[in-house]
């Protein structure tokens, strides 16, 4: 889903999605919008996302949706960069909003998890394998978040409403259609 305008100058608002520590379910839910993706791409350019071939986060993005908790030093570095170059930052889904499933490891400690899951303590190549933070934590504990969209995952309808309302310059009212866990 590469926007036709991605290589040329465009006056359309710039949209990005970022994937931190999550299962990609929120991005799958985004894809579940089906034909409405085309409607959105007429209103905005998708300039950065796991779904497009763009390696570097652009200098300026109007709306960025973040899936996933902050679990590693790399996640933290990434979200600080994204925040600095984004106008409206949206925590998309329970992992970004509450740390959700990634946070299940938090009471146990990093070492116990690495011993159990990676069979043998800290990574041998810290330059290529990011170090885990002490806790997997919600995005808003590291950077300012402008809109929270709870849900595991938020439905395609919810994500469509979020993006179209923000593009229209309005703050979407999500209370009736979102809650933790669902």
């Amino acid at each position: 889903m590469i926007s036709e305008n991605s290589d040329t100058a465009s006056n359309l608002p710039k949209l990005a999605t970022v994937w931190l520590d999550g299962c990609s379910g929120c991005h799958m839910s985004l894809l579940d919008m089906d034909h409405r993706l085309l409607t959105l791409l007429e209103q905005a350019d998708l300039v950065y996302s796991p779904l497009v071939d763009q390696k570097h986060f652009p200098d300026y993005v109007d709306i960025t949706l973040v899936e996933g908790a902050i679990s590693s030093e790399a996640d933290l570095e990434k979200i600080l960069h994204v925040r600095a170059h984004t106008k409206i930052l949206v925590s998309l889904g329970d992992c970004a909003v509450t740390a959700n499933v990634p946070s299940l490891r938090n009471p146990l400690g990093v070492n116990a998890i690495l011993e159990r899951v990676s069979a043998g303590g800290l990574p041998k190549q810290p330059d290529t394998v990011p170090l885990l933070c002490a806790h997997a934590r919600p995005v808003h504990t590291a950077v300012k978040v402008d809109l929270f969209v709870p849900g595991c995952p938020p439905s395609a309808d919810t994500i469509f409403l979020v993006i179209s309302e923000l593009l229209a310059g309005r703050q979407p009212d999500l209370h009736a259609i979102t809650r933790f866990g669902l």
Partner: protein
Amino acid sequence: MRVVTLKINGQEMSGRDDEDILHVAREHGIDIPTLCQLDGVSEWGGCRLCLVEIEGSPKLSAACVTKVSEGMVVNTNTERLAGYRKSIVEMLFTEGNHVCSVCVSNNNCELQDMSHELKIDHISLPYRYPLKEVDASHDLFIFDANRCILCTRCIRVCDEVEGAHTWDIAGRGIKSQLISDLHQPWGDSPSCTSCGKCVEACPTGALFEKGKAAGEMVKDARFLVYLEEMKEEKS
């Protein structure tokens, strides 16, 4: 017993003077949020969600344990109360490890419902991530302390309805925890009758039936009201 008149949220109403504010309000269609309150067992006043403002009193009062009186003027939904209620529920989330998406009680949980009712879309307070235990020693049920909000509904139903008093609270403050008998594994409890009332009374996924997967544990404590009515008819 006599009948008194009072005003709740500007609405004139009457109630018996042995009734609490919570029940008089509910009889007149005014809902006050609660978590530790359960019809059919005694009032506890522990969750503090039902705090209300009473004119002439500088402090807030828990509606479930404050009796109505003549001329009382009560407000249940001011901005100040909404702020406190939000903080209380946020603290419940930070003091335990509540992960709704993988919980047996997902979509059947009073804590989850309350966060929605109070329009909580994220937790602004710092999480504590305490290390808590899961007791799966009972043949039929599991106790997951990570999801326990210490409402004591299980304790009261076990003590007052079943008459077993298997459950109790040990420790104080942040170290408070639910224990069975003399802090021994639930499965070893000599007093537990395995009746399951505590499981039905639990508002979250802290007490649940073995074999239930995420979202499968549906609870219903309405039988307590019938038991109460039958008891009253008998006496």
